[in-house]
């Protein structure tokens, strides 16, 4: 069953281009959305399956022969699979209306599903090389999706993204090769044990640096972030949402967490480096977001900044910090995809992404305005929305660990966050209606359904945060902490 997480999107992606020959719109819409519903059902089904157990390791077999491919489903993977399925579902709902005017919907869905398959695979695999493989699967699909509009900017952004990613992949591969060279193994458990028995700390440190470049670039941590503000805004809005909401978290944060916390073991040195990367990303990207006039670029910088929070929490390495980081990851996935989808609604309605050209659209697009406000306040960390709780947990964890300076900067950065989100709200939705947009209308039905769904989830997660944390986030954090404890002490540094 676990294999279905990878196989189902992949198979549907395979047949979609063929279906597209028959039905331009209806069948692709139906199939894509059905896939996500099935994935959601699977998450709940599997979640019930592993509840109470430690983790489920499934060995794949083909006609009775073991294939030496092992999939691991623990709390952490399940949590991430849930986020992917949930946000993916909202995105595919949104695409029903939004992707109409792009044409070749079937191809779009196919690429999107390949990306989803890549991400799901990445979340389930148990060895370093497989991580590399699925990372590339998701990445290749995303290159194509960024360039999906085929305009000048899209192609340039895609190319930049591809070239920087290739560098990152190269270093990742180099790191994996080095690890394999010294330990003779690739699966997490053996590598962890092999590294523990090893006495070459600088080599391992170098590998860690390679991994930080690789995953940090995927997660768009400053200074590895420069591709993101070009790539994310260039993609169609649903893909922007998927990239910012999911891909950077799965191929960046998840992979980073898995490798550093569960394989290498988070040593003080790594912890320090990760926390500094997090805090630098948080502040620098928030300041950059402030200077943007293009709504999607602003959101893209905001993503970098928020990933900074997540990495800060996880890099802290305390159970509470990890919990806060993971919770923020989930909340940010919801809120940021909501905001990117709304930026798509705005772009579709007005044809522009320039904030200065908008104004007073709240009167014409009340639902979009309100849902954007919910998303903005959530990310800025205004109670009682979900973002408030996760930021609070991170800050509390920082204070508990005695990292006062980090806590203070995190608070101040969230003020910056509120600042630029209010800028969006004021310039786009409040104030006098720009005469140009007198005939603008609210987004179409499915787009509205999707954004309202996400906004309600933001509110519900905020109000019932205790329930969300206990049923989804805590098992994930526990799994990470448990892996961390077994891996720790295995390394000399």
């Amino acid at each position, binding site marked *: 069953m676990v294999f279905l997480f990878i196989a189902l999107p992949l198979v549907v992606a395979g047949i979609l281009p063929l279906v597209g020959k028959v039905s331009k719109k209806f069948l692709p819409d139906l199939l894509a959305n059905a896939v996500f519903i099935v994935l959601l059902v699977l998450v709940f089904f599997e979640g019930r399956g592993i509840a109470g157990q430690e983790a489920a390791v499934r060995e794949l077999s083909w006609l009775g022969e073991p294939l030496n491919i092992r999939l691991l489903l623990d709390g952490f993977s399940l949590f991430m699979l849930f986020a992917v399925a949930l946000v993916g579902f909202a995105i595919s709902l949104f695409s029903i209306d939004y992707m109409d005017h792009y044409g070749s919907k079937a191809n779009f869905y196919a690429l999107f599903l390949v990306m989803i398959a890549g991400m799901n695979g990445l979340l389930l695999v148990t060895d370093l090389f497989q991580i590399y493989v699925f990372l590339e699967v998701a990445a290749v699909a995303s290159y194509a999706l960024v360039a999906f509009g085929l305009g000048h900017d899209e192609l340039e952004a895609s*190319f*930049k993204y591809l*070239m*920087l990613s290739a*560098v*990152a992949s190269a*270093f990742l591969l180099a790191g994996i090769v080095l690890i394999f060279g010294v330990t003779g193994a690739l699966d997490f458990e053996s590598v962890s044990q092999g590294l523990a028995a090893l006495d070459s*700390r*600088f080599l391992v*440190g*170098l590998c*860690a*640096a*390679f991994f*930080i*470049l690789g995953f*940090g*670039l995927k997660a768009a941590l400053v*200074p*590895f972030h*420069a*591709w993101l*503000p*070009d790539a994310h805004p260039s993609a169609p809005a649903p893909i922007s949402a998927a990239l910012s909401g999911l891909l950077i978290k799965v191929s960046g944060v998840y992979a980073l967490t898995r490798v550093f916390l569960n394989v290498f073991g988070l040593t*003080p*040195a*790594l912890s*320090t*480096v990760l926390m500094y*990367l997090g805090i630098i990303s948080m502040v*620098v990207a928030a*300041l*950059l977001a*402030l*200077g943007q006039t293009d709504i999607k670029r602003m959101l893209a910088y905001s993503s970098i900044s928020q990933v900074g929070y997540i990495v800060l929490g996880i890099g802290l390495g305390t159970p509470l910090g990890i919990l806060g980081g993971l919770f923020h990851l989930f909340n940010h996935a919801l809120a940021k995809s909501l905001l990117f989808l709304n930026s798509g609604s705005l772009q579709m309605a007005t044809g522009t992404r320039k904030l200065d050209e908008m104004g007073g659209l709240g009167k014409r697009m009340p639902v979009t305005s309100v849902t954007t406000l919910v998303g903005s306040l959530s990310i800025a960390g205004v109670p009682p929305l979900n973002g408030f709780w996760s930021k609070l947990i991170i800050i509390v964890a920082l204070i508990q660990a005695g990292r006062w300076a980090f806590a203070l900067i995190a608070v101040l950065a969230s003020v*910056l966050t509120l*600042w630029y989100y209010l800028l969006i709200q004021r310039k786009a939705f409040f104030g006098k209606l720009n005469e140009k947009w007198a005939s603008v209308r609210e987004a179409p039905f499915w787009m509205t359904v999707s954004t309202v769904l996400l906004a309600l989830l933001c509110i519900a997660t905020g109000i019932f945060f205790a329930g969300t944390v206990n049923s989804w986030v805590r098992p994930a954090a526990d799994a990470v902490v448990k892996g961390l404890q077994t891996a720790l002490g295995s390394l000399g*540094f």
Partner: protein
Amino acid sequence: MTAPMLLLPILLPVAIALVVLLIPSRVKAVREVISVLASIVLLYFAWSFFTIKDLTWKVGWLGNGVDFDLRLYHFSAFILLGLAGFLFLIALYSTVKMKNVPRVREYYAYVFLTAAFANGAVLSNNFVPLIFFWEGLLLTLYGLITIGGKKDSNRTAVKSFILGGFCDFSMILGVAILWKITGTLTLSEISVKPEGLAAASFILMVVGAIGKAGAMPFHTWIPDAAIDAPVTVMAFIPAALEKLLGIYFLARITLDFFVLEKNSTLAIVLMTIGAATIVLAVFMALIQKDFKRLLSYHAVSQVGYMILGIGTAVPIGIAGGIFHMINHAMYKCGLFLSSGSVEHRCGTTELKKLGGLRQEMPLTAFGFAVCALAISGVWPLNGFVSKEMVFHGAVETGYIIFAVAAWVGAILTFASFLKAGHSVFLGPRGRDVPAVKESESPVFIPILTLAGLCILFGVYNKLPLKEFIEPILEGHVEAGEHLDFSAHALAVFNPIALISVGCLVIALLLHLYGWKKAGRKAYLASEPVHKFPVLKQIYDLAEKRIFDIYEQGIRFLKGLSGILFKLVDRPIDAFYEKGVTAVGRAFTGVLRAAHTGHYANYLAWSIGGLLAVAGIISLLLK
């Protein structure tokens, strides 16, 4: 009569207020009929209560000594009766005078709510319900002033609210201190010596009481309201109801809660407040050019006599003060109502435009004359009796200065009423006003009733003194002390009464002098005083509201907020606006400039980052 019947004077007016609110505006007579009938019913019950005089009703409420505790005894029954009487007269008067007011439904609702709150305040035997009702009066007063519908009505309403709120806050503070000292909130259980903290409580509660009664310096809304509020509101609230409540509470403070010693510091403070109020307010009253405004300053000035009387802390003074309270309520209500009658017919109350109305409005003129003579203390009206008692009390303390102040007040009071009566009813007929006729009977009946009561309480002063006043003092003077004030009340041939009569003569001469000097224009008769050196400068300052604590307070607060704005708010704002924003934008600018979009740059950053990370990791490994 059972104990829960005590709720009736509170709940019935509330019910009436709701009913009149529900009657649509276009339905005409019903509202008036209901309100007059209800006020008759209330008057009947007040009379019944007065015959019982002893009833308590108590239910637990919030715990901790906060009970809903009503107590009817002689004093509260007396005030209750007075309130009901004035409510009836005002309701009757309003049927004509307030008929065509735009917010007539609200007017009646507020009037009856006022009655409910006032009755509740008088009956309360626990400070918490007392304060509840006391505060409720602020709200209805606010509403009633705004019904005036003049340009500044809302402003004046706010002014009354803030001044009243200040006094009430002070009272609440005093009550809290008293609670701390005595450990109880029940009025009838409290009796402490005003020393130390209790003295502070005394002062604070006195501020609450005299603020309600409208003494200086908390009076400044009353002259404004005289112009901005309906005249019935003036006749009902500042003239009658607030005097009854304020002086009732002041008497309770000085007689019951605290034992005020004769000539103690606190007694002298009270007498000083009283004397100052008499003199300063009457000086202001003298020069007024508007009938209602003139009356309103007298409403302030006369409070001084009551406070002075109670402050003497000698039985005759206290009795005089309380007697003056009910007398003042009657004649001042009558005076305001007669000014309302003039306004009703002539459409103005400016003294300059009026004149010679005695022919056309004889009943109003008669009622006014009786009330004016009563307030001036002319023998044998009620004002003479109560003022003489206050004079006696003041002399008895040994501080003649207070008696002198009271006499100065008497001179100027009479002078100003000579001026007012002369300007309005005597002299040549004013040409600005067309021919008028006497007001309708619901207007002149209340005026004549009050005038009749003024005569009755003066000539047959035994009745009110025996029935109303003396029982209040029982238990507060030494046993066996003679408590008969009525025997010599009308005696003229004693030094004090002779001086009083002399004062009236001086006032008459002053008026005639001023009248002659102003070329026989009565409304200018006060000009000699107005233009007197030194006084003129003070008057000019007063006209600029220099002495108005509300205006000065507002000016002070505005100044303070201006200073805070400039010295604290703006710098902080500038810090955020210029400092934080500019720094943020500068960083943003630098960072944006770095993002050139060149692939090579970005790649270089990544590699640089890698080197940095690797370097730091190897550093940390050591």
